[in-house]
Every structure is written in structure tokens, then in C-alpha cells.
């Protein structure tokens, strides 16, 4: 299913912002909010996982059903999960497209990566504590 995804601030994301390696931050930033009707069309329940793919990347997220987002759209808290599918092109303005990203969404059983996993995929090294 093709949706228009936007990223932005949420209270849980902001509350865990000093604890980016915590489960709370991972949970807060890896939820994709989708309208009930779109979830129904995907044939999955709120809380099931989906593979979200854009022109710039792909990542596994957890769905959460909401009536506050219109059908055809999706929302995610800003953070490393959103950025896994956001491109670096800025149209000559310095500002990448953090909003209105066209994504393809399909159900998956794959696990949601951790923040450390995402950083290691691009060449980072997790810190042990």
C-alpha cells in the first residue's frame, strides 16, 4: 500500500530524548501511526509490524491505529527510524524532505531493529554500557 508519511515531534519521543538507547525511545520512535481503514485494507491489526520502504531506504516499524490521520497518510515520530527512509536531497534549500515522503507499506514478521542496529548498519559501533 502506498502512503504519504510525515515525521514530527511526539511527547513520548521528546520525553526519552536524553535516553536514546532505551527501550522507551525505541518504542516511541518506531511506531508508525496509520488510519484504521488503511490497516484494515492491509489486513493487519494495530501493533503488527510493517516493512516501510521509500526511494531512500527501508525499515521495519510497529503500526498503531488512529483516527487522527486521514487515509492515505501515515505519521512517525522524528528519530533514527524515520531517518532510515528519509533521503538527503534538499532541493538546494539545505532542508531534506522530512515530511510528505511517499512510502510503500507491507506486513512483515521481521523484527524491529534497535537504535544501535540502525547505527551499525551504516558503519557505527555500539557503546557497551
Amino acid at each position: 500500500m502506498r502512503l504519504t508519511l510525515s515525521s514530527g515531534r511526539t511527547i513520548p519521543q521528546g520525553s526519552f530524548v536524553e535516553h536514546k538507547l532505551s527501550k522507551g525511545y525505541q518504542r516511541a520512535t518506531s511506531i508508525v501511526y496509520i488510519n484504521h481503514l488503511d490497516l484494515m485494507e492491509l489486513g493487519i491489526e494495530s501493533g503488527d509490524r510493517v516493512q516501510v520502504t521509500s526511494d531512500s531506504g527501508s525499515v521495519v516499524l510497529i503500526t498503531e491505529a488512529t483516527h487522527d490521520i486521514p487515509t492515505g497518510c501515515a505519521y512517525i515520530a522524528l528519530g533514527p527510524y524515520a531517518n532510515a527512509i528519509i533521503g538527503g536531497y534538499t532541493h538546494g534549500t539545505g532542508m531534506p524532505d522530512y515530511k510528505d515522503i511517499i512510502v510503500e507499506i507491507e506486513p512483515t514478521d521481521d523484527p524491529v531493529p534497535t537504535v544501535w542496529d540502525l547505527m551499525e548498519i551504516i558503519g557505527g559501533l555500539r557503546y557497551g554500557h
Partner: protein
Amino acid sequence: MDIKDVPCPFCGCLCDDVKIQIEDNRITGVENCCTLGNAKFLSKSRLQHPIMRKDGKWVEVSYEEAIDETARILSDAVRPLLYGWSGTVGEAQVVGVHLAEEIGALIDSTTSVCHNPSILAIQEVGHPGCTLGQVKNRADLVIYWGCNPIEAHPRHMSRYTTYADGYFIDNTATDRKVIVVDIRRSDGAKVADEFIQVKPGGDYLVLSALRAMVRGKSDVVPDSVAGVKKVQLQRVADLMMKAKFGAVFFGLGVTMSRGKYKNVRNAIELVSELNRKTKFTISAMRGHFNVYGFNEVLTWMAGYPFAVDFSRGIAFYNPGETSVIDLLEKKEPDACLVVASDPGAHFPKSTIEHIAAIPTVQIDPCVNATTALCQVQIPVAITGIESAGTAYRMDGVPIRMKKVLETDFPTDQEILERIVTRIREMRADG
């Protein structure tokens, strides 16, 4: 012990009425603060020692070794990038700008990925703005466009708009109207008197339609604009023109979506149109507590508010070329110093891939996503809790941040000064 009127070092509201209870040099209670500020004041986890990667493993090192390594990395670099700055005070930012000039670096802040388009628009058409105090005491119409204050600036509505008493407003509950414009029905939209739901990417069209209506050209507006009915737009345009004092606040829904700075320019020009009929202002909802401060500091030192490239020996500013995302996307930097921000969590994947590929040093109190991308991390005192200094509120009002806890950790400013000193020593040694 209680300390009153502590400014909160979280968001651009810089609420300066927070009360902190302290026992044995620990914060045991916070009053008047929002969820976000509370979480920061009461946070206990932090990095205890400088760390450095050696043979593919993290090891603890002394401050001296970490600073030596940082100075070596920056000295050896041909195209160093100094990035971050929004989570520290002006006094540290000043040292950062001096460092950038001295080593010919490119310096940019988190502005680049938040309100950079707002600055570009303001440079084109000006900024009819005002302080938050004016809004609180005078505004009878408040418009939140592409922002969600309840989640991003949780006390903005209670301190300055919807729920705040105003000196020139008899009854704020009835006399102050609130309009929210957003692509989704956010929590802010739920408490608004009027909610305009725009289709993603439709802000420019809706702003243009409102401008036409304010100009008296309603007949050119079609029945529906970006998913918004003409009757609602006309109702909103009438509300705007009838207001005695209107205040528009806009967020990243305007700056990050399609159109970018042209959206902001259109919003400013709508406000200019409205000023022919009544009094209207427009202001950006700045994010980090001192993101505005970096724009001030860099402007008075280099002449430009962000994305300044010193590689030519002079300050050169060309957003789209000298802005951090474009620079990283082109894989230009060969070393990076990150101060008081977390690009690992907030930059597109392709750009942080490059940060991971070059020698990167982070100055930050906490382990964060950027830690994984660094070669060195230097922990520091938490600004606004363990160290004092100047920050600028989102409306440009400077506020003195307080030190409420004693600490042995050095401040951002001290670490940066030691790095500058060490680089000078290395250069003198040839």
C-alpha cells in the same frame, strides 16, 4: 533547598518559572515544568568518562588524551565540519565560531534541519514578529500553522496563548480564538476553535487562497483548496480580518514540506496583507532551547545566521551548498566535531553514513545515537542544570540559564577552549 525561576533547558519556550527542589546536590522535585522538561531535569543517565575507539573497541581515556586526539583530528582535516550548538549557551557557541574561523571550518547548527527555510524566507521578505509577551497580553486570535504545541512546546498555550491571561483581554476563554492548520488532527487541533485540515504539501495553496480573500479577491478561489472547503477558508479569512491583534505561529509542517521556504514566505506575505487591515504578527516555533541563540551569535560574529563556510578565510554563506545536509550528502567533510546535538538520530541515513566514515568527535553529556558514529566522545556538564550562560528564547529574548547543581564535569566552553589552545600549540610546533 528550593531554587525558584529556573529556566528550563529543553525547548525554545525557555520557561523561566520552574521551581527545583535539591537535596544533597540531586534534583528531587520539579514544579511548573512540562513532561519534556521534567524528564530532562530528572534524568540520571550520562557518560562518566571520555571514550575513544581503539582497535575497534571503546576504551575510557583521560580528558587530556581525548582533547589531544580531537585537536589532532581537526588540525589534520582539510574540510572540517563543526555541527550542533543548539543545546549549549552563547558563551560556548562563541568559542565554536572562533574555532571555525581559525581552522577554516564549515560551521552549522540544527537550524539547518528545522527553521533554516524560515530564515531564508525572512531574508527575502522580512519578519513582522513580536515577543511572546505581546501575544500573551494582546492577541485575540492565535493561529498555529504546521505545528503541534501540545507535543513539541507543551507550555506554549498555557504561558502565552490559549490558556494564558492577557492584560488587554477581559476573558481569554471567550475572547481569544485559536485556529490550528495541520495535515493531521493533532492534540492541538482538538482544542482549537477552528481546525483546518490540509492535504500534505498543500500549505502554499491554502496560504495563497487566504491572501486572495484578504485582498478581497475571493471570487478567484475555487470551491476546495488542498482539501479545504472555500466556505471554511472564507470564515477563517473573516476571523483574521476582524481580529484586533492576530498572531501566527508556524512550525516544521511548513518548513519541511514541499515548497519549504516559499511556504514560509507566503505565510509572511499573508501576514503583511493582514497588516493593511489590522495588526498581525508571525513567529517561528523554535525547537531546541538555544537554537535561536546560535543564529544570534553567528550573525553578530560572521554576519550570517547558520551554514557559514570559513574555508575561503572569510565567512561564506550559501544554504543549499554550505548547509550541513548538502555538505554531508556530497561527502565533503573529512572530519567532524558535533557539539550539543545528535545528528545520528536526526539526519537522513545517507548523511550519517558519511559521519561514520570520517573521524568524528562528539561533545555531549549523554550516550546517544551519534556516539556510535564517533571516534571520540567527551562528556560535559549539563548546560542549564550544571552550568550557567545565555540562551535566546524563540522570540529572541535572551535569558540567563542557571547552574543549580555542582559538578566535576567541565563545561562545553571549557572543553572547546582547551581544544583551541591545543590546536594552537600543535600548529606552533609545526
